[in-house]
């Protein structure tokens, strides 16, 4: 069924080479986009929870804007509109970046910042889901705001949101496919191109689907590994924890983190 992938293309390669190069762009976009998203997301997420009104408002504005416009439209804005509103020289320099880099960088920034808004919400939810007592205990020990975030709040919040970060990881790698709208020939675009060149629709999309599935599996397993590696002893399900008999009485009825979102 996949034999067609080994046939020659018009430009002298084989179709499978198209797929492989598509995979490369998908991976590069997802990987580097993720680190942008994570770094910006954690900072903005913390910004959402601080006392300082101006910072919190800015962080909120960021989240509202980047979360509420479809990625597809954001891609367009980064690619077409940004160079036009920059100083002419800079704009022209950006436009002269040869393909595929000319599409790759806007896509990277777009995906990174879009996902960052979503991660920021997770981080905020994680921080807000921590018992108030943690902050109080830290204050009572004389820890400053910075130290409290650094040593008490952020380490716990990040652990708490690992499951939802998993869906963000899956989300960013799937959203890479939207980059095809600004001409980046990533995996889905290549599959589509193969399908149009060979009329072997099922083969082309089948191959791409299998690759995406494999990637999802890897992402998922990787996150599960991280989750296990950073899990706090004594908090795992059915581990060696002694269940303090009184705590199940004071546990909340619903321990679903507020902004736990499933993303695509």
């Amino acid at each position, binding site marked *: 069924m996949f034999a067609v992938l080994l046939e020659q293309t018009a430009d002298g390669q084989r179709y499978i080479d198209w797929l492989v190069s598509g995979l490369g762009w998908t991976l590069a976009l997802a990987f580097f986009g993720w680190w942008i998203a994570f770094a910006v997301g954690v900072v903005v997420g913390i910004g959402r929870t601080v006392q300082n009104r101006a910072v919190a408002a800015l962080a909120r504005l960021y989240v*509202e*804007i980047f*979360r*509420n*416009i*479809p*990625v*597809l*439209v*954001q891609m*367009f*804005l980064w690619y*077409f*509109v940004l160079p*036009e509103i920059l100083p002419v020289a800079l704009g022209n320099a950006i436009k002269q970046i040869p393909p595929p880099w000319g599409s790759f960088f806007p896509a990277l920034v777009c995906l990174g910042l879009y996902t960052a808004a979503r991660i920021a919400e997770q981080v905020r939810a994680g921080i807000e889901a921590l018992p108030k007592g943690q902050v109080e205990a830290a204050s009572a020990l004389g820890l400053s705001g910075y130290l409290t975030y650094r040593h008490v709040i952020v380490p716990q919040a990040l652990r708490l949101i690992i499951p939802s970060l998993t*869906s963000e990881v*899956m989300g960013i790698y*799937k*959203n*890479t*496919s*939207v980059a*095809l*709208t600004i001409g980046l020939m990533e995996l*889905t675009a290549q*599959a*589509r191109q193969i399908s149009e060149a060979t009329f072997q*629709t*099922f083969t082309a*999309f089948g191959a*791409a*689907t299998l690759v*995406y*599935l494999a*990637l*999802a*599996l890897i992402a998922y397993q990787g996150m599960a590994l991280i989750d296990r590696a950073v899990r706090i002893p004594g908090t795992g399900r059915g581990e060696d924890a002694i269940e303090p008999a009184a705590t199940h009485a004071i*546990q*909340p*009825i*619903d*321990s*679903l983190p*507020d*902004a*736990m*979102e*499933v*993303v*695509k």
Partner: protein
Amino acid sequence: MNSLDFSVVLQAWPYLWSGLLFSLALTAVAFVVGLVLGTCLALVQHFELPVLGRLVRGYVALMRSIPLILVLFWFFFLVPIVISHLGGGGRPVPIGATWTAFITFGLFEAAYYSEIIRVGLRAVNRGQFEACQALALSTFDTYRSVILPQVLRVASPIILSQTIILFQDTSLVYVLSLTDLLGAASKLAQLNGRLVEMYLVIAVVYLAISSAASQCVAFLRKRYAIAGMRR
């Protein structure tokens, strides 16, 4: 680029409006279908039914692993074939891009809603199940009257924010050449060459609708929170 000219947007407003209506209709249908089907899928997993449970888990995992664009492509080619097989005929019955979009989004969202509801089901305190057992409620009554109402309430903010994402994702129907808000804008742009203005305007429209919806969610949550129930 030439200076911006937003007057074309004003002239084209009726067409954009019909595109927006399509986006909203697609969102609404996918929401209803997705939620009903998603609840069923979640229950199947929750009950750990032997074969069906695995199938459903596989389906959900599959849907969550593939980009929506690819899913749309798949359904566009698959749905006609599946329907023709169901109908017994040999020739694929083309059902049109509109139906494809409705079916795809419904089935696709079902996977996401089912995950949300499944997590919600897990988050219900075990004591609630035990109290139902102790009161001799049947399984049906337990879920119908006690568990699902709580799950839907607890999960409603997440369900609604997923729906807002869904609304944004409807923009991807451009791959089926359908005329949603974005499709209307880009088709008009082809007539009048004002793509940048069009995109800026619809970015604002999406932003306004999605933000308003999330403010609404926050408001409703406060307004209709079960008195005294946490959150």
